[in-house]
């Protein structure tokens, strides 16, 4: 058992360049025929941010949230609140979409070559990570000039938080990649599922919105693994106070459990994948 894991990991490691260039090739090809090319990685989150700014900043005029930062009263603009949740949420969404397609859209590779199949969801995750990292830069590009929110000492939290989030997304994408092989219908279901997940997560509303909705509802919403993850991003991006310890614990727990189970389940199924091509 232990030696099998080691062999698999070293096979995987030997193929790391394959995973990297596969992802880079797809990134390059994605926008190869568009005029803006790679600039789309910046334009996409910018447009996304603008759309929500129009809707919530102008039409709904949600104003500000009354929070604390460093123990002192702090007014956070709703736009900053929204984007600090929206961009990380889209990372999870694109990791899921990429994961679903990672095996079923590479049938030619699967039919012809023998390699650790985990390479494929990993390459897909690398692809969506590039988009996410650029969107983190775009975040400050938007809320800096508009709301005066710039990186501070709390921004250092971004690195561990992104790592935890990456691990969580990795687990999620291996699970959906595995399920999509015999169950292609998943491809059609993912958009609805992620939409529902967005509305169940504290992205377009604050956590306090749940108060008074009943204890059961509140507890259910807090079970959402993205709940602690998004809290952590809020702190890392805007510096507002959160319950750091419990959020870190919950987020790490989810990430470790999901990625361990996901990878084990995926690898166990690898030999059978070729049957469903």
């Amino acid at each position, binding site marked *: 058992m232990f030696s099998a894991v080691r062999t698999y990991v070293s096979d995987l490691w030997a193929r790391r360049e*394959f995973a990297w*260039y*596969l992802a880079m*090739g797809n990134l390059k*090809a994605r926008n190869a025929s568009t005029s803006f090319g790679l600039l789309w990685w910046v334009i996409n989150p910018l447009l996304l941010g603008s759309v929500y700014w129009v809707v919530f900043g102008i039409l709904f005029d949600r104003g500000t949230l009354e929070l604390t930062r460093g123990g002192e009263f702090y007014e956070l603009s709703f736009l900053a609140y929204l984007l600090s949740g929206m961009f990380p949420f889209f990372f999870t969404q694109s990791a899921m979409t990429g994961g679903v397609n990672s095996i079923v859209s590479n049938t030619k590779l699967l*039919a*012809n*070559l*023998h390699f650790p199949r985990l390479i494929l969801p990993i390459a897909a995750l690398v692809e969506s990570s590039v988009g996410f990292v650029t969107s983190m830069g775009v975040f400050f590009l938007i809320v800096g000039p508009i709301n005066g929110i710039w990186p501070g000492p709390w921004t250092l939290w971004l690195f561990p938080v992104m790592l935890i989030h990456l691990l969580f997304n990795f687990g999620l994408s291996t699970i959906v990649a595995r399920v999509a092989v015999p169950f292609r219908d998943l491809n059609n279901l993912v958009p609805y599922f992620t939409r529902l997940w967005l509305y169940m997560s504290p992205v377009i509303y604050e956590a306090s919105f749940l108060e008074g909705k009943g204890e059961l509802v509140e507890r259910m919403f807090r079970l959402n693994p993205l709940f602690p993850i998004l809290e952590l991003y809020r702190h890392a991006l805007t510096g507002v106070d959160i319950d750091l310890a419990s959020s870190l614990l919950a987020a790490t727990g989810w990430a470790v459990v999901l990625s361990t189970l996901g990878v084990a389940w995926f690898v166990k199924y690898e030999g059978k994948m070729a*049957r469903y091509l």
Partner: protein
Amino acid sequence: MSSPAIVAKDITVRFRPMVDRNPTLRRSIGRMRHRETQELVALDGVDLTINKGEAFGIIGRNGAGKSTFLRVMARTLKPDEGSVNVYGKTSTLLQLGVGFNVQLSGRRNILLGGLAAGLRKSEIDEKYDSIVEYAGLEYAIDRPVRTYSSGMFSRLAFAVGMALEPNILLLDEVLAVGDESFRNKSMDTMRELLAKAGTIVFVSHALPNVAEFCDRVMWLEAGKVRMIGEASAVVEAYQTAVQEAR
């Protein structure tokens, strides 16, 4: 005699494809509960040893199980029963251009195809010039591969496949589109490989080529070995059977 390159023991592969006679809503719902399947035996107890230095052909009608057998040898399909041992570095050309992204340039695809086949980036960089020269595509190497003709595409793919410097080459009907000069070139390369005690397993419907190029041939029929032996004898027997069936 020489040592074995591939030892296949009692390989059996069954597929359970979904049968969709007449897709209706009611059937689709029923299918979710008990998938309507019909077992299909693609390979039925195939026993075979291929030696080093041998050119081995596989012939048979469409659907006989030739490609399935190559996939088992390439270890991308685990047989339901039996085992296969492969001794040597294998280059698989079951399909051409595996790992290629046709939106990208030939240059980029040499890297992608090479990495997919199992080379390291440093090895590919080293061999890059000789791959391009072998494919004879210096003039088109920075163009997207989707603009290549099918012959150009297969030149590039074959050149990348050979860059692995395999001991064992698995070929599935892929060299049909190259022009005369490239076909001669690839034949020379394959003869060189054989001379270096390499092994070639070759699936083709071009019977004269098979008879000429291969040492031994296996004739598969409905997943079973119908005949195995000296190339021209098996090809002749197969041709006779096809004639009679008409």
